[in-house]
């Protein structure tokens, strides 16, 4: 990553390249002075930096060139809509397009002279109108976009239609609204197939399809999604389950993951999700480092056919190209209250898959609990139950003074049903005292017959964890002082009081991915 602060926007696949634009502060490792950086990749893994795509040089974006989305039209045009903060700090939407469509790198961009194309409508505050979505085609022959906002404490999504992306008409009503959720940022609406495993173009609708509506809640800096139906008749989106509506139900990720956005990768017919992962150390440290914030590894998104109530996120297959030496640990018996070292090559850069089975006798014996467990309010991996916690200790030093457990905790709820929790415990991740050290996670649905499984990507100060094939995900930032480079180790642990577990683990040391400036001498 180049120095400064980054937060990404406007992803797309064009001209044989994946394009990634990002909100960037070239002057400091904190938010401010926002302009658009640009990077390209052939495989979503190795990136090349291009010159800044857009800077804050017009009255309508002089206070910030913020989030935007790309729409690729069937005639080859590329439409970029983005939010600009004007010279009077009003949030407006602007149109930009590539200067030269025959340049696959899309280096130069032109701002439409008639900008802004959209200003806050009556009843919407000047500062509550941002992050236009990718457009989708509507049966009336026009395009629609959504923009998040709020009215008092109700988060809403406005919808506009347009024929030329220059003139817009506000559609009466809202796409959807949920009271108490506050400002909706980075709204995203996209179809998922109920039967197929491939992604769908943003304009797709019809039988066999559901629509995911997502919002980033300004209030708590988390990304929430809900699955529902987007009616071609009414133009409204309705959740399948109003108890799990946008902002009050499921999250993409239960750790540090925000302002995420999907795009349809027409190259490989996938829907890809990308998230912004901020720092959780102090800003003085960020200033010393000279940089702040990273992007998650891109994830594919598909509908979870087994539960029918979740989406599944999984690191893109291209990440496997970074795998080096592999090690297998088959059917390790880990008794209650024990820790087993896993000898691996490079514990700071790893791809890990693990499956766990709890001994059946312990499962039968377990009594009901009268207290509901929750990752966030628990004592983390140190709080022992009959059937958990158990999992892996990542970025641990030899004495295990520093360690970041990622674990399962199984308990019988007050209703007599077994519930599985998936948590990450940062409380002992570092001896430094100016970093966040939280415990977070969520329940994860486990279908009968499924083993408990997790996949983890470790990269020095970032851990991305996926349970049950990506049904529940947790991204964590940790800053160990001892468990670094060659001193970091990997362990499997079982801190349950009565159950034994059998763990089968496979690990890969990971190569580093390259992020370099693009040079014209390079082969495309």
């Amino acid at each position, binding site marked *: 990553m180049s120095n400064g602060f980054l937060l990404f926007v406007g992803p797309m696949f064009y001209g044989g390249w994946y394009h990634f634009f990002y909100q960037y502060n070239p002057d*400091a*490792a904190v*938010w401010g002075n926002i302009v658009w950086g640009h990077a390209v990749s052939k495989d979503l893994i190795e990136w090349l930096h291009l010159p800044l795509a857009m800077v804050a040089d017009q009255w309508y974006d002089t206070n910030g060139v913020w989030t935007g989305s790309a729409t690729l039209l069937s005639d080859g045009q590329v439409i970029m809509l983005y939010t600009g903060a004007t010279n009077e700090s009003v*949030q407006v939407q602007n149109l930009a397009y590539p200067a030269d469509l025959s340049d696959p790198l899309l280096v130069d961009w032109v701002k439409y002279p008639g900008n802004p194309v959209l200003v806050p409508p009556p009843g919407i*505050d000047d*500062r509550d109108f941002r992050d236009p979505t990718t457009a989708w085609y509507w049966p009336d022959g026009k395009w629609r976009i959504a923009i998040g906002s709020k009215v008092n404490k109700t988060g809403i999504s406005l919808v506009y239609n347009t024929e030329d992306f220059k003139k817009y008409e506000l559609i009466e009503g809202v796409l959807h609204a949920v009271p108490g959720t506050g*400002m909706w940022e980075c709204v995203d609406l996209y179809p998922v197939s109920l039967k197929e495993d491939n992604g769908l173009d943003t304009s797709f609708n019809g039988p066999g399809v559901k629509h995911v509506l997502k919002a980033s809640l300004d209030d708590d800096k988390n990304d929430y999604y809900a699955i529902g139906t987007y009616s071609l008749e009414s133009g409204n989106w309705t959740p399948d389950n109003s108890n799990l509506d946008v902002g009050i139900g499921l999250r993409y990720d239960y750790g540090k993951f925000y302002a995420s956005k999907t795009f349809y990768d027409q190259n490989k017919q996938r829907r890809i999700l990308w998230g912004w992962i901020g720092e959780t150390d*102090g800003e003085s440290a960020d200033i010393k480092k000279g940089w702040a914030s990273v992007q998650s590894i891109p994830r594919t998104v598909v509908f979870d056919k087994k539960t029918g109530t979740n989406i599944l996120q999984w690191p893109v297959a291209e990440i496997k190209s970074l795998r080096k030496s592999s090690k297998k640990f088959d059917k390790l018996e880990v008794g209650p209250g024990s820790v087993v070292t896993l000898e691996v090559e490079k514990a700071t850069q790893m791809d890990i898959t693990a499956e766990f089975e709890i001994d059946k006798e312990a499962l039968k014996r377990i009594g009901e609990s009268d207290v509901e467990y929750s990752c966030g309010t628990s004592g983390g991996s140190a709080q022992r139950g009959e059937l958990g916690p158990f999992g892996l200790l990542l970025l641990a030093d030899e004495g295990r003074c520093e360690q970041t457990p990622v674990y399962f905790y199984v308990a019988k709820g007050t209703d007599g049903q077994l519930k599985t929790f998936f948590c990450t415990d940062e409380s002992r991740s570092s001896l430094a005292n100016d970093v966040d050290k939280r415990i977070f996670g969520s329940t994860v649905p486990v279908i009968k017959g499924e083993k408990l499984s997790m996949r983890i990507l470790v990269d020095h100060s970032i851990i991305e964890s996926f349970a049950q094939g990506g049904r529940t995900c947790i991204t964590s930032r940790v800053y160990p002082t001892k468990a670094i480079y060659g001193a970091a180790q990997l362990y499997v642990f079982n801190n349950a009081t009565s159950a034994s577990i059998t763990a089968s683990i496979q690990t890969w040391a990971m190569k580093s991915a390259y992020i370099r400036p693009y040079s014209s001498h390079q082969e495309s």
Partner: protein
Amino acid sequence: MRSSVFLLCVVGLSLTQIQFSSADLVKQTCRQTPNYDLCVQTLRSDPRSSHADVAGLAMVMVDMIKAKSIATLHRISELLGTAPHPKTKATLRRCAELYDNAVLKADIPSAMEALKTGNPKFAEQGANDAANEADSCERAFSGASPITSFNRSVSDLSRVASAIIRLLL
């Protein structure tokens, strides 16, 4: 004669009414912060508060954090000039760095821009970080801090600012 006296009274009443409304916003806002007295006292000391909305009040508070941070840096300079014990000297230097590079050059500008342009969560982050840096500086003296009142002031003001900014989210 009588009518002009009457007019004066009416005008007098209206002025009081207007003042009461904006003082109301200050009180209302400050009630939702962890330090009501500090909040009211700080806001009232700045003439901008009488016609500011909540974002404006937040900006007044951020300006006060800036002022106190500058004052802290001055005090640190003074202390460094008195040839202190090497350990104290090192800690003072470390604190100067936190206040200068982190609080004044990063947190404050970031928070102000965020408040101005309507992206309050970055302002909340800036204010929280300023509190953390002040606390971090104080802790580094291991109980023998020569600038406790300064650190305390920045920390308390930052927490009040953070609470006001939260109202914008």
